[in-house]
């Protein structure tokens, strides 16, 4: 089956108005996302495929995006 990335139940994505940044919060960790990472995670809605996500991001980023998604999935924060 094609992977349609979505946040796992362990993870919460939110904007932090105090620090003006986006955060991914998991049981024992708070991960500060840079703009690119936040944009990618924000597209992980369980509907879009990896190809759909890549298509919505600036051109030439494909390899980085795929690698990033795999890494976040390995951490258990995406399913």
């Amino acid at each position, binding site marked *: 089956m094609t992977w349609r990335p979505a946040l796992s139940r*362990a993870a*919460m994505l939110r904007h932090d108005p*105090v620090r003006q940044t986006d955060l991914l919060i998991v*049981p024992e960790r708070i991960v500060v996302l840079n703009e690119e990472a936040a944009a990618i995670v924000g597209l992980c809605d369980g509907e879009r495929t990896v190809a759909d996500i890549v298509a919505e991001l600036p051109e030439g980023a494909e390899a980085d995006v795929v690698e990033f998604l795999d890494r976040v999935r390995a951490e258990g924060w995406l399913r």
Partner: protein
Amino acid sequence: MSAPWAMLAELTHACPLRCPYCSNPVELAARSSELSTGEWQRILAESAALGVVHAHLSGGEPLLRPDLAPIVAAAEGEGVYTQLVTSGVGLTERRLGELAEAGLRSVQLSVQSATGAESDRIAGVASFARKERAAAVVAASGLPFGLNVVLHRENLDAVGEIIELGLSWGVARIELANTQFYGWGLLNRTALLPTREQLARAEATVKNYREKTDVELIWVIPDYFDGVPKPCMGGWGAISITVAPDGRVLPCPAAYDLPLELPNARDHSIGWIWEHSPAFNAYRGTGWMREPCASCPRKELDFGGCRCQAYALTGDAGRTDPACGLSPDHHLLDELAGGGTWTFRRPAPSASGADRSAP
């Protein structure tokens, strides 16, 4: 000054268990002094506005608060991620369902050792069977599930079996936390103190399991033994706040006994406490340090170690943490020998009073 990220909410100091290493203070806050639901809601809102995004809802046993669900809901409403830290006693399917409904994000269950007999002996109360049932309930809920075990002389040799237990319960993370010697842990230090050989064996076992399993194994080092102080709380008043059941606010959960005037959330806003209270400013940064810390290249890395440990062992919270090999007080640790019996957190329960937390 940066904003705090995380809160440890000690919702009550009451607990059906009696662990001899309990991280609660030796002087437990009375139930009659506990904050109300409305007070917790205000504290969570003020903390979130200040920058807190993560809360451990702990105790004692937080399930003893009948208003836990509204407290979870208040945190969730402020965008604060909540993790329940529980002994498992009282965690029924219905209760967990109510908490998940309110927005609870994850659960950390504690266990005292790998078998029922040992776990109950260390907890001082028959509780393992209930933990097993709680584990099944959490696993079935699909919530992120972590196991927490405090390690010491009496269970370090069982660390492999403890990891196996966690794997069989379906947890995603096992926190193996060596006892910290404050409060109850300090009171029972000789009985809890492991040997170097025990620690080395346990660490090797953990390393071994890391190659065999995807489950995250967190090994919290015992600073008494490696000569390196831990960067306590990421620095004093730098990352997190602890709120006591009665509203006292502390820079660290072990700071109850320090000679500081602890601010109370009943009298002040969390913002004022973080920024202006003398307690939160007492050991902020590096300006308070004396030698050998003041001129040490590691001072921005470990912040001179733990203030509570310095105070507990030397009577002066401004000294270098004796866990540091450079501390003139380091010999206090080298001379220690373990063994003997411990004192439980409270006397043995009487037949009638034992089960007040039964679901």
